[in-house]
């Protein structure tokens, strides 16, 4: 799944480590999310979206294949 996490992090000048600490996961999880190797749980997706003051759909980009 594609995410806007790297872009949002850059905008807020935030490191992976800082974001990881804020949402209670490891840096490796953030890396995996960013490269699309791992799909976040609903709870984590909610925490990340909340951190950036956005909705889940605005942070995590569901493509057509995943929707069906």
């Amino acid at each position, binding site marked *: 799944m594609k995410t806007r996490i790297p872009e949002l992090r850059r905008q807020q000048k935030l490191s992976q480590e800082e974001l990881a600490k804020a949402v*209670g*996961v*490891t840096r*490796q*999880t953030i890396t*995996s999310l960013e490269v699309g190797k*791992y799909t*976040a*749980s609903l*709870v*984590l997706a909610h925490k990340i979206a909340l951190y950036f003051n956005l909705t889940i759909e605005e942070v995590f980009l569901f493509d057509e294949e995943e929707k069906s």
Partner: protein
Amino acid sequence: MKKISFEKRLRLRLQVNIACMILSAILFAIVLWNKDFAFLQPMYSASLFGLFFASLALFIRNKKLKMDPEKMRTMELLETDERNVLIIRVSYTIFTYVSFGILYISMLISGFFSTTVFYTLETLLCANLVLVLFIRKMVEKIY
């Protein structure tokens, strides 16, 4: 499912570590004094030594963690991180299937040499399968 706090989990681990150390010491004493099992002494001694020192090492590690809140938080994060949890779950699932495969192949090969070993491994395999099914049903009830 009810969540146990990391501090409580750590306390529980320390208790298990102590129990394992005591158990290995008692069993070691029994093995040492029981002359009927003399032929098994080296094997049992090495195994019990291993259990004792592994428990001791884990006890020291857990005790250090308990005394350092920063380290405890880091460890908690590593253990509760959802990706790490997924990795562990997938690894254990693969390990279970591979173990079954190894056990099944060992059972087939053992048949050429010893029927006793063959039946022992066959029983073990069947018992494991029943156990896996039972555990699965239990976990299904939890979630």
